[in-house]
């Protein structure tokens, strides 16, 4: 098929007729209309011509000796299964029956002899434009396929049974030998090394490549429907390079840490010795200056520690060695470690720990627990007046182990309390008595607590002082399978209904309009993952704080169109956009929140 300058399409037309005169006159008509004609004198010649070079249209005499038009039509259809070749049958027979029969055999159209040239022209134009349309669609489809195949990410579509329905070239290369042969229809467990439910739950995991090696991968899944059947399309990103960059970053951080701390060691040491008078007595003003320098050198050291910790925690590369530990042992070690600091500040460290409670176990990283306690104790000692006591308390219930650290200092200003666990927050201005914080300590502490499944809060207590409370899930409970509920708080009744329908089969769902209703319903007595939309709930920040309070170990998820990713990050909560989040998105988020709380949802 080609286009002339006027835009008219010139078609290659195969004219099949056993009678030479009819064949020639038909060819003349065709050529007169600006097309090219190829001639065939019988059915066999026609089929050979089709195989040699595919014409655009076949004009086919029905009545021929040997293979007749019906048989030729049928065979043309078989030969050109993957491409449409319009066949127009021509006959001088009276009546429509033979045309009907030809159409049943696969012909597209018919013309009666003698052929009306205008009708022939109209039909050829029609098929010309159909063929052009078909070609445009084929080009567009091929372009989509090329884009799809040239994605660097592997894209794999599975059905609900976990069988591969479709995959792109990157996926063929990653998980096969570069062709889809043997992969289409394969089970995902066989192809990727993981079952569908595991793929659905995990954002990052190791998959098996076609060559048997392992590939760290990030998965993004979308659920869609094809003729009512669920399809799961996974975009699989190879994280090998990113992991390498992470490793380099870790090495770089370790080097930076070493390079910063080496000169700091000399500075802290030399000034510390000066200030202590070890290098001889100094006049009081000089000693005072040396003390200032010493304190700030130490502060710089802590800042470096906090920054390095923060970089690791925020990028989620902190390795935690979670083991059951007796909480009494952890607290005793923490108090011993801070004793020197307390002595220097002339502050007493007290433990209010029941010996039976001390045997309870929490599932934490021992070193990081020590760091959390060191931060809280250092903070308390810093604010405690000389000769006062800092009290470490332990209260346990069936579900949680609560550790408190209380000082008798000036307490917490209300406006500071709301942002004290944020980055670079310090009680400022009014309280110049206790310099030396980095503004990162409590933020790092909160991140560490939450990363290990705990919750931290702070309150001014009755009487002077402040109290920090850390709740840990009991280790035995953390390991056991436990029925977790979903608490969904939303003013939007449709959303409540939708989520209850989606999630109700997986876990019990409590749907309520507001936090107050939740409190009234005694929600605090159950273990919840909380899903909520701050719209119509007053201050969004306060709403988030309320959600976190009700959630088991802080596992709350924002489900709203009214907030953005910055807000969610600030609140430290995962976020689902209500208008676009699918059922699978919600299930996955809740499952992750639940897993974060060391819980297993009953299926």
């Amino acid at each position: 098929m080609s286009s002339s300058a006027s835009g008219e399409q010139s078609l290659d037309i195969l004219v099949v007729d056993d009678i030479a005169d009819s064949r020639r006159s038909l060819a003349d008509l065709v050529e007169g209309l600006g097309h090219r004609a190829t001639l065939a004198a019988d059915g066999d010649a026609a089929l050979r011509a089709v195989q040699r070079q595919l014409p655009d249209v076949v004009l086919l005499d029905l009545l021929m000796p040997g293979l007749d038009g019906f048989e030729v039509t049928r065979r043309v259809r078989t030969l050109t299964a993957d491409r449409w070749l319009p066949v127009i049958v021509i006959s001088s027979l009276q009546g429509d029956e033979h045309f009907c029969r030809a159409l049943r055999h696969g012909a597209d159209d018919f013309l009666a002899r003698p052929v009306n040239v205008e009708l022939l022209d109209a039909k050829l134009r029609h098929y010309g434009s159909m063929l052009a349309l078909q070609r445009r669609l084929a080009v567009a489809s091929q372009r989509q396929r090329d884009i799809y195949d040239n994605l660097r990410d592997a894209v794999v579509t599975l059905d609900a049974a976990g069988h591969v329905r479709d995959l792109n070239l990157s996926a063929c290369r990653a998980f096969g030998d570069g062709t889809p042969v043997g992969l289409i229809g394969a089970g995902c467990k066989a192809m990727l090394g993981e079952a569908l439910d595991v793929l659905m739950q995990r954002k990052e995991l190791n998959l098996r490549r076609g060559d048997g090696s392992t590939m760290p991968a990030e998965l993004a899944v979308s659920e869609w429907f094809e003729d009512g059947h669920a399809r799961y399309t996974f975009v699989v990103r190879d994280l090998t390079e990113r992991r390498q960059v992470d490793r380099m970053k870790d090495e770089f951080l370790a080097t930076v840490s070493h390079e910063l701390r080496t000169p700091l060691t000399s500075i802290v040491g030399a000034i510390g010795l000066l200030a202590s008078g070890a290098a001889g007595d100094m006049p009081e003003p000089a000693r005072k200056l040396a003390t200032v320098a010493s304190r700030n050198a130490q502060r710089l050291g802590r800042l470096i520690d906090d920054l390095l910790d923060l970089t690791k925690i925020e990028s989620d590369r902190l390795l935690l060695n979670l083991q059951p530990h007796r909480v009494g042992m952890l607290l005793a070690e923490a108090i011993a470690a801070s004793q020197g600091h307390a002595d220097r500040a002339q502050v007493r460290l007290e433990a209010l720990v029941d010996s039976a409670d001390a045997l309870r176990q929490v599932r934490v990283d021992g070193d990081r627990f020590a760091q959390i306690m060191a931060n809280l104790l250092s903070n308390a000692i810093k604010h405690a007046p000389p000769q006062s006591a800092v009290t470490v308390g332990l209260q346990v219930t069936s579900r949680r182990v609560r550790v408190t650290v209380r000082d008798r200092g000036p307490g917490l200003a209300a406006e500071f309390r709301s942002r004290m666990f944020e980055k670079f927050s310090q009680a400022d201005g009014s309280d110049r008595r206790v310099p030396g914080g980095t503004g990162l300590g409590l933020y790092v502490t909160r991140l560490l607590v939450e990363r290990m499944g705990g919750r931290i809060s702070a309150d001014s207590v009755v009487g002077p002082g402040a109290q920090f409370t850390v709740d840990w899930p009991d280790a035995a409970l953390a390991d056991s399978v436990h029925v977790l509920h979903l608490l969904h708080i939303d003013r939007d009744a449709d959303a409540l209904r939708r989520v209850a329908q989606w999630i109700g089969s997986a876990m019990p769902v409590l749907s309520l309009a507001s936090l107050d209703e939740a409190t009234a319903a005694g929600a605090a007595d159950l273990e919840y993952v909380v899903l909520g939309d701050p719209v119509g709930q007053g201050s969004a920040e306060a709403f988030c704080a309320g959600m976190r309070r009700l959630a088991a170990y802080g596992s709350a998820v924002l489900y709203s169109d009214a907030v953005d990713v910055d807000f969610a990050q600030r609140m430290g909560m995962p976020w689902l956009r209500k208008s676009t989040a699918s059922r699978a998105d919600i299930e996955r988020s809740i499952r992750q929140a639940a897993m974060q709380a060391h819980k297993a949802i009953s299926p």
Partner: protein
Amino acid sequence: MSVAPPSLKRVMCVEDDEDIRTVLEFSLGTLGGYEVMCCASGPQALAAAPAFAPDLILLDVMMPLMSGPEVLAALRQTDRLRNVPTVFMTAKAMPEEVESLLVHGATGIIVKPFDPVTLPRDILIYWEHGRGRP
């Protein structure tokens, strides 16, 4: 004749940073009253240690020529130095690293920056803890 209980007298410090060596000498020698020998590298320390006969060795981890763990391994090959309590000093102090250093057989870890005023007392605790071990 009664035998005086053993006490911590001679401390060897192996540290490539000259300023930190100065602080260590001051802290442990001038302030702590120990007999201190500071070496700038592992080979230097291995050469001097048999004659000095330290009761305790403080060993920097990251040094050119020989790393702290390499020096420790060499010390463990030397008869008279095999059982000397050895404490690593590290400026990295990632939990993973502390773990691996203790696996190397160190008595303890001192994290830099350390407090030079409390260091004389701190190493005494390590020494008491470490000398009981093979």
